[in-house]
């Protein structure tokens, strides 16, 4: 019946090919319009999963109570200079706060007045103690400036210190370098104020310091890139920021919004790049395999029309793409041409001995049933995900399943119409690479079968170690700024993304839960709001009291009232010049300090002969910031005890709700990247706290849905394809024989995942059901042609093996192109499919014919 339909359809097309092509062109233009104007892509990974699970409800409730945690962007200011990191971050926060139309929340916890005043209490006791020693070291300089708030006091001190080298303060060489820098910058016009804080606190380690500003943007879901505006606005504020210390820091973005935005950009870039590579590879494969310009042209035309139709179909049915389903647009380049290749090659084979019309009709009749069947089985492979909870892949399934049917329909229409109006394809001579294979294969078919079974055993053995990576972050481009910054913060223990959170009713409930949770083996730390109050305050306040004593001479200095003029300034500059010269010549001088003093001497010499206003500017650059730091220090070492209620409101709001509910954060005691550890941690915590949320819970929840979806989809694909094969091939043995390469390829996918250490993930689970859907095509073609041929040597003389080889090669090319993606999910689909299809090609062209010739008895023909 289907053959009758094919005959009448092909007859219809070739009787009025021009009209048909015009109609197709009109539909294609309309489709193109829809595909472009209504394009949209959704990147919210959580929305790729059906939403009505318990963990999702818990998460939603958490966000309802603490909306601050939703969709954050972290602006990460980092660097080695404490003052630069803190000053630039403050300036940036002030600028960001002005953009009220773009951001609803801007919060730099470390930039608050509170932290400025109480920062010392948040240092570990030992660090605070060392810091006070550093303050003691800086005391002479601080007091000299406090007693005489101009260059006179400082220069006098330097002059005296250099004259009595046995009593030099430890910070001498750093201070001299600081002054040399200040003189140089004043002389060359940059006129940079001295950054005293780093010197006063003398951080002797080289650690990078981080300051994070949390931003919550007003999301604009109407645009095709919803987070784009937020990210771009932040970037433009960063670019426009002018600050003397900006060059000393790195400013980077991470957090949910930049990660999601980056994922969309990388998925779209990846699709674009892979698509371009695929299109080029396709031409190369076609030139290599077809060697007929007309067939290539027809194939390409079919592919492009099919692609546009599918893109429009996706928008009309699903409405939008997601970061996984967009991949199908690339896959289509390889998959959609397969049918055209089979038709084109068969026509090329037939047209030599028949009239054009007969050749076209016979081509449709000869290949049509097989490609239609292939379209259906491939669609089954894709549609297998539709009934599962995994919406992301279900959408891919709808788009791709439909796409396959579209590809069949377009191929069966465009190819006959195209060849009805152009001349017969001229076939250039081809190397007969497959007939060599046929002789060898015929002679050694038993050995081939034996090797195939041995390989199956080995592959299965390796595949046992395959595992599933539950992390949703592992899909993202690992080299993007957002991802690298995110991992860096994780490494530095600044953010704990692998912590579980929950909302306790009140502070007492939190305390009680903390005690219980800490008894669990898998829990290392439980943080409740009280834990943000500095610890060991009594001891820290004692240490700060010591600092007050040490710096009392600066804080309670009697200010020198003696008037002070330009000539006096010149005089003490000269005195310091002489003292430094004496020091440089002194035999007891410390080598490092001598170098520093030498530099100061040179700069000072320049200053001495410059204009008065330069000297005044230098004085301001040195003294004004020092007085500011003194005022800050006096305040910071004199603070009192801090309690929870003293923490800044914006900060407290992240911990305590309006109704007094509090956030409890639970950290794991082991690395929970491995699924077993992730599950142990999550389940143990959930045994105490039922309504827990956080990335471990969400990842585990999503992961379990994905694994179940994967199992269901594979079962659906295998069963439905098996039924179709039984119906069509009408042979149990042939059905099994076609399935052997498929099952082996599925195992090969797992084995590859183990061997190249590319775990299965949310994206590449699509590969296995897909192998059944796509791989079965070639099996059908080979079985069908095998039964039309006396033995496998004749099989290899027909166009079928070449068509199988070529169509697999085009698929391989496009899927291989996916492995150039930055997006880890797309990349891993590409890599696994490349390995899988390579092995499938060998199995179909070598093992399957050998298996057929040994085991197949029936002479079934596809009807």
């Amino acid at each position, binding site marked *: 019946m289907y053959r009758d339909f094919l005959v009448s359809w092909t007859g219809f097309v070739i009787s009025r090919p021009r009209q048909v092509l015009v109609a197709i062109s009109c539909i294609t233009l309309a489709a193109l319009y829809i595909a472009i104007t209504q394009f949209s892509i959704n990147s919210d990974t959580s929305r790729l999963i059906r939403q009505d699970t318990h963990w999702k409800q818990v998460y939603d409730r958490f966000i309802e109570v603490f909306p601050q945690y939703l969709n954050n962007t972290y602006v990460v200011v980092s660097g080695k200079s404490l003052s630069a990191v803190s000053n630039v971050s403050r300036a940036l926060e002030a600028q960001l706060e002005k953009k009220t139309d773009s951001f609803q929340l801007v919060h730099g916890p470390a930039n608050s007045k509170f932290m400025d005043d109480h920062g010392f209490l948040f240092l570990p006791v030992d660090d605070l103690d060392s810091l006070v020693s550093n303050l003691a070291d800086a005391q002479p300089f601080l007091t000299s400036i*406090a*007693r005489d708030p101009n260059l006179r006091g400082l220069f006098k001190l330097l002059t005296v210190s250099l004259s009595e080298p046995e009593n030099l303060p430890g910070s001498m060489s750093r201070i001299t370098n600081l002054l040399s820098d200040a003189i140089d910058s004043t002389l060359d016009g940059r006129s940079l104020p001295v950054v005293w804080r780093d010197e006063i606190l003398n951080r002797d380690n080289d650690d990078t310091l981080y300051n994070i500003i949390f931003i919550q943007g007003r999301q604009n879901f109407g645009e095709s890139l919803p987070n784009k505006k937020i990210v771009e606005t932040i970037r433009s504020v960063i670019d426009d920021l002018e600050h003397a210390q900006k060059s000393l820091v790195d400013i980077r973005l991470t957090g949910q919004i930049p990660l999601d935005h980056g994922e969309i950009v990388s998925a779209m870039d990846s699709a674009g790049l892979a698509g371009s590579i695929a299109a080029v590879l396709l031409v190369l494969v076609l030139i290599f395999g077809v060697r007929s310009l007309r067939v290539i042209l027809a194939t390409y035309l079919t592919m492009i029309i099919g692609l546009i139709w599918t893109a429009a179909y996706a928008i009309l049915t699903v409405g939008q793409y997601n970061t996984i389903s967009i991949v199908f647009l690339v896959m289509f380049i390889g998959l959609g041409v397969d049918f055209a290749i089979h038709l084109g090659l068969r026509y090329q084979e037939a047209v030599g001995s028949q009239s054009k019309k007969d050749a076209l009709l016979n081509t449709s009749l000869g290949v049509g049933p097989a490609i239609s069947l292939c379209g259906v089985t491939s669609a089954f492979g894709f549609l297998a995900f539709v009934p599962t909870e995994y919406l992301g892949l279900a959408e891919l399934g709808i788009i791709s399943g439909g796409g396959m049917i579209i590809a069949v329909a377009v191929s069966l229409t465009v190819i006959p119409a195209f060849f009805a109006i152009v001349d017969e394809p001229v076939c250039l001579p081809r190397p007969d690479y497959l007939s060599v294979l046929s002789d060898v294969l015929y002679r050694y078919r038993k050995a081939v079968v034996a090797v195939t079974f041995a390989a199956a055993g080995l592959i299965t053995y390796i595949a046992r170690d395959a595992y599933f990576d539950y992390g949703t972050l592992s899909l993202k481009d690992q080299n993007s700024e957002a991802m690298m910054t995110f991992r860096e913060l994780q490494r530095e223990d600044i953010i704990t993304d692998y912590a579980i959170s929950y909302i306790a009713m009140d502070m007492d409930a939190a305390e009680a839960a903390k005690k219980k949770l800490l008894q669990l083996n898998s829990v290392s730390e439980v943080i409740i709001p009280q834990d943000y109050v500095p610890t060991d305050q009594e001891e820290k306040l004692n240490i700060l009291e*010591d600092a007050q*004593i*040490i710096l*009392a001479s600066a804080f309670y200095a*009697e200010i020198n009232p003696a008037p002070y003029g330009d000539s006096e300034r010149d005089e003490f500059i000269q005195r310091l010049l002489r003292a430094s010269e004496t020091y440089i010549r002194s035999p007891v001088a410390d080598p490092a300090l001598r170098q520093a003093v030498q530099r100061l001497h040179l700069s000072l010499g320049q200053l001495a002969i410059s204009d008065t206003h330069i000297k005044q500017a230098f004085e301001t650059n040195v003294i004004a910031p020092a007085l500011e730091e003194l005022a800050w220090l006096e305040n910071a070492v004199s603070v009192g005890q801090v309690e929870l209620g003293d923490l800044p409101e914006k900060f407290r709001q992240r911990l305590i709700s309006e109704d007094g509910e509090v956030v409890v954060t639970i950290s794991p005691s082991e690395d929970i990247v491995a699924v077993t550890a992730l599950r142990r941690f999550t389940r143990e915590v959930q045994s105490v706290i039922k309504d827990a949320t956080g990335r471990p819970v969400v990842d585990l929840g999503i992961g379990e849905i994905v694994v179940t979806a994967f199992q269901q989809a594979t079962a659906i694909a295998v069963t439905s394809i098996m039924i179709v094969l039984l119906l069509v091939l009408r042979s149990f043995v042939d059905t099994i024989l076609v399935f052997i390469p498929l099952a082996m390829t599925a195992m090969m996918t797992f084995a590859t995942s183990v061997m190249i250490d590319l775990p299965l993930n949310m994206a590449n689970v699509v590969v296995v059901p897909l192998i059944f859907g796509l791989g079965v095509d070639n099996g059908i073609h080979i079985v069908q042609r095998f039964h039309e041929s006396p033995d496998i040597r004749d099989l290899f003389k027909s166009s079928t093996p070449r068509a199988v080889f070529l169509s697999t090669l085009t698929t391989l090319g496009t899927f291989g192109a996916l492995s150039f993606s930055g997006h880890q999910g797309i990349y891993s689909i590409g890599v696994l499919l490349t390995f899988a299809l390579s092995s499938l090609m060998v199995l179909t062209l070598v093992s399957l014919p050998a298996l057929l010739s040994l085991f197949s008895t029936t002479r079934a023909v596809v009807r």
Partner: protein
Amino acid sequence: MSRMSRTLASLFLVFNFYLPALAEPTTPVTEFHEGLINLMKSASYNDRIQLLTTIVANNFDTSTVARIALGRRWRNMEEGNKAAIVALMGEVIVSSYASRFPTYTQQYFEILSQKPIKPDRIIVRTRLHTDAEIVDLDYQLIELNGQWKIFDVAANGVSDLSLKRAAYATTFKSRGVAGVIEELRQTIRDNRDKANLP
């Protein structure tokens, strides 16, 4: 002592009958200054040491000096070590002043003002006049059991306590108690050698 301050002193004497616990913060400073003048007049290092040892013992709070100089680890130190360090700290103070003034050349001290910082802490500002220069000496005192004790002297703004903290806390961190004790002993020997007195 001017007549004015003598009058003030006698007033305080009167007050002291009613407020027996509160001594005059300038007293230890004055006693120390007098000691220094006597010391300048003495040509023997041992005599100088003997003279100052009593004065420092009476007027300085060497345990506060030691505590702040060594930082937070002081608290967890064995009592025996603490006592040894406090004693040595006293010797360091004594020997450093004993070595500092070679001869008496009409130097004199002047008490300028007092600046209370906290109920139990005060700064007494003084000035040393020599024939070559004027040195601002700011004393920080703490009140212990009704007695004011000196624990820091800042000469022209350079605090002795902060120099000690910068030096000994570092030593303590790297070489422990033994290192500190050794360094204190070395300083005492150096002071003696520097003094260049019989």
